[in-house]
C-alpha cells in the first residue's frame, strides 16, 4: 500500500518534471531567442505613459523579429505591468534578472520606480534603459543604468528661458507628489536664480487629486505671473480647467509630461495656450524636411496610429528609443554580454531617436542635449511649435 503510494508520487513527479522541461525548451530549429525584459506601468496612475510604452515595445519587437531579429536571433519581449508601483517594480526586476535571465531591462515607466530598481540592476550587472526622466536616474552615473527621456534640468532651463523672453519673473510651482513631480520641482528651484526667476510659492499635491481649486486659490493669492505644473497624471488637465474656473489669467506652463494629446482632449478648451517643452515627436509633421529626426518620427507616428488607432505620444517614443538603442548596441557588440552591451551603448553617437539625437559616453548615460527639446503650445486643440507672442 505504502509502496504503491510512493510509486504513484514518484510517477507524478516525473510527469510534472517532464512537462516543466518541455515547457522551457526552446522551439525546435531556431537559436535561443534574446530575452528582453520590460517593466511598464501599463495600468494604474501612469497608464497614459505605460500603455503606449507597452504597445510600442510590442510593435518594435514584432518589426525586429519580422526583419530577422537581432544577430539572427529572434527577440522575446517579457512585459511586466507594475501599475506604477515601486514595490512591484522591485519584485519584477528581481524576477526578470533571476528567473527569466533577460539580457537587459527596458523601463520602468516612472522615476520613482526607476530609482527603486537602479541599485538592483547595478548590483546584478543588468543593463537598464529607463523610460523615466528624473535626473537622479543617471546622475550620479551607474555603470549599467541608462535613460532615454531628456533630463529634467533641460526642461526647467527651457521653461525659464521662455519666461525670460516673455518678461515673467515671479512664478508659482505646483508638482505631483511623485518621483517625477518632486524631481522636476527640485530642478526648477535649483535653476531659478540662474535665470532671475522668483518662485513665490512651491507646493506638492496628491498625484490622484481630482480637484485642485483650493491649491490654486493659494497659488493665486501669492500674486504670481505664471504657474508651472509638473506632473504626469491626468491632474494636468484638472489644473488647466480649475485655473480657468477660478478666472486665473496667469500663463500656465507644464512639464514635458504634458506631451500626450489625450491630456489636451481631457482639458478641452482649457488647454488652449498652455506652453511646455518636449521632444519633437508630437510636432513631427510640422518639422522641416531637412530635420534629421523627421523621417523616423513620421514613420513611428504613422505605424503606431495604423496599429493602435490612436496618436503616438512621446512616452511610447521612449520605449521605441530604448529598444532601438539596445538593438544597435547588441548588434555592434555582437554579443548579449552585459558589459559589452554597456560599452556599446556608451559608444553610440549621433543616433536619431524620437527623443532627440543621442550621443552617449562613459559620463553621459542619457545622451541628449538641450537642443533635443522644443517649446510647444496648444492651439485649437493641436500641438504647434511655440514661436513667441
Amino acid at each position, binding site marked *: 500500500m505504502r509502496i504503491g503510494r510512493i510509486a504513484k508520487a514518484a510517477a507524478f513527479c516525473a510527469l510534472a518534471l517532464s512537462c516543466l522541461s518541455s515547457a522551457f525548451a526552446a522551439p525546435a530549429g531556431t537559436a535561443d531567442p534574446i530575452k528582453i525584459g520590460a517593466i511598464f506601468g*501599463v*495600468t494604474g496612475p501612469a497608464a497614459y505613459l505605460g500603455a503606449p510604452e507597452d504597445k510600442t515595445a510590442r510593435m518594435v519587437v514584432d518589426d525586429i523579429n519580422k526583419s530577422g531579429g537581432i544577430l539572427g536571433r529572434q527577440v522575446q519581449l517579457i512585459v511586466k505591468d507594475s501599475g506604477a508601483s515601486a514595490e512591484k517594480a522591485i519584485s519584477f526586476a528581481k524576477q526578470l534578472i533571476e528567473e527569466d535571465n533577460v539580457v537587459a531591462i527596458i523601463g520602468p515607466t516612472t522615476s520613482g520606480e526607476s530609482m527603486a530598481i537602479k541599485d538592483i540592476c547595478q548590483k546584478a550587472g543588468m543593463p537598464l534603459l529607463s523610460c523615466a526622466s528624473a535626473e537622479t536616474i543617471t546622475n550620479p552615473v551607474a555603470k549599467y543604468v541608462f535613460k532615454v527621456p531628456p533630463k529634467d534640468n533641460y526642461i526647467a532651463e527651457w521653461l525659464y528661458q521662455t519666461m525670460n523672453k516673455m518678461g515673467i519673473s515671479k512664478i508659482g510651482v505646483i508638482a505631483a507628489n511623485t518621483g517625477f513631480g518632486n524631481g522636476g520641482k527640485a530642478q526648477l528651484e535649483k535653476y531659478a536664480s540662474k535665470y532671475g526667476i522668483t518662485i513665490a510659492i512651491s507646493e*506638492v*499635491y496628491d498625484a490622484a487629486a481630482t480637484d485642485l*481649486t483650493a491649491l490654486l486659490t*493659494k497659488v493665486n493669492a501669492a500674486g504670481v505671473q505664471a504657474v508651472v505644473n509638473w506632473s504626469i497624471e491626468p491632474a494636468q488637465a484638472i489644473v488647466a*480647467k480649475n485655473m480657468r474656473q477660478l478666472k486665473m489669467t496667469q500663463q500656465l506652463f507644464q512639464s514635458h509630461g504634458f506631451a500626450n494629446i489625450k491630456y489636451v482632449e481631457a482639458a478641452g478648451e482649457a488647454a488652449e495656450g498652455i506652453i511646455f517643452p518636449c521632444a519633437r515627436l508630437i510636432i513631427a509633421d510640422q518639422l522641416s524636411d531637412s530635420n534629421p529626426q523627421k523621417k523616423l518620427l513620421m514613420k513611428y507616428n504613422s505605424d503606431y496610429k495604423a496599429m493602435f488607432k490612436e496618436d503616438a505620444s512621446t512616452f511610447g517614443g521612449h520605449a521605441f528609443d530604448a529598444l532601438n538603442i539596445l538593438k544597435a548596441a547588441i548588434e555592434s557588440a555582437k554579443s548579449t554580454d552585459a558589459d559589452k552591451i554597456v560599452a556599446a551603448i556608451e559608444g553610440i553617437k549621433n543616433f536619431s531617436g524620437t527623443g532627440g539625437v543621442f550621443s552617449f559616453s562613459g559620463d553621459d548615460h542619457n545622451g541628449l542635449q538641450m537642443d533635443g527639446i522644443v517649446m510647444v503650445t496648444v492651439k485649437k486643440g493641436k500641438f504647434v511649435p511655440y514661436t513667441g507672442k
Partner: protein
Amino acid sequence: MQSSLFVQYLVSGLIYGSIYAAVAIGFNIIYNATGIINFAQGEFAMLGGMISSTLAGILPLALAVLAAVALTALVGAALERVFLRKVARGGVLKMVITTIGLSIVIREAALLVWGEGVRTLPFFTGNEVSSVSFLGANFSPQVFWVVGITALVVAGLTAFFRFTLIGKAMRGCSANRDGASLCGIDPGRTVTIAFGLSAAIGAVAGCIVAPLTQTHYAIGTGLAIKGFTVAAFGGLGNSVAAVVAGLFLGMLESFSIIVVPEAYKDVVTICVLLAVLFVKPSGLFGSRAVGALKDY
C-alpha cells in the same frame, strides 16, 4: 484673510464635501439594510461616471446620465442577488470580504471594457472654461449641479424612508429583520432594493462630479475610502449625519491647504477622524445603543 479668498476655499470644501456625502449615504443605506459595509460602493460611482461618459456620445446628456444611473442600480441589485445573498448565511464578515472581492472584479472589468484612459463627461451647463462669480469667488457652474443634486438626493431619501411603504419596510428590516419578516415584509427583496438604491446614488455622485474631476476605471477605491471615512465620522447609518460630516471634512481638506501641502490633506482628515473615534467610537452623531444592535 480676504473675504473672497475665504469664500473660494469654502466653495472648494463644498465640492469635496458634497461628493463625500453622496458616497457615504450609499454606505449608510446598505449598512442599515444589512449591517455590512459595502466596499464596492466606490465602484458604483466609477460605473456611473464611465457609463454616462460612454453613453453621452450617442444620447443627450440628461438621458445618458439617467441611463447610467439605472444601469448601475441594476448592477447593484444583481450583485446582491447573485453573490451576496449566497454568502449572507456565512455572517457579516464573509459578506464584507465578498464586497471587497466584488470591487476588485468590477474595477478589472471596467479596465477591460474602457481601458486605462481618463474620460470626461460634458459639463451640464457651459464647458470647462465657464465660470461664475459669487461673493468674489469664482467657480464652475457645475458646482451648483453638484450641491443642488446632492441636496435633492438627501431630501428625496429622507422622504422615501419616512413616507413610502418600501422605505418604511427597509427601516423595519434594519430595526428588526425577523420582526419585519413576521409583518409580511420580504427581507430579501428589501435588501436587493437597498443595493439598487445605494448603487443608484453612487452613480448619481459619479455622474455629477465627472465633468469636474474626470473619471477612470480606478477612481472607485479612493472614493470608497473617503466615503467610508465620512460615514464612520458622522455615525454609521445616519444619512443626515453623513452630509454634515462630509461637508465638515470637505471644508477641513480645503482650508488645511492654507497651512499643509495639498499632498498631505488626507493626513489631516484621517487624524481628525481618529481623534473623533477615540473620544466617541460611534461617530459624531451615532448612538452606541443603536450600534450595539448591529452584528458588526
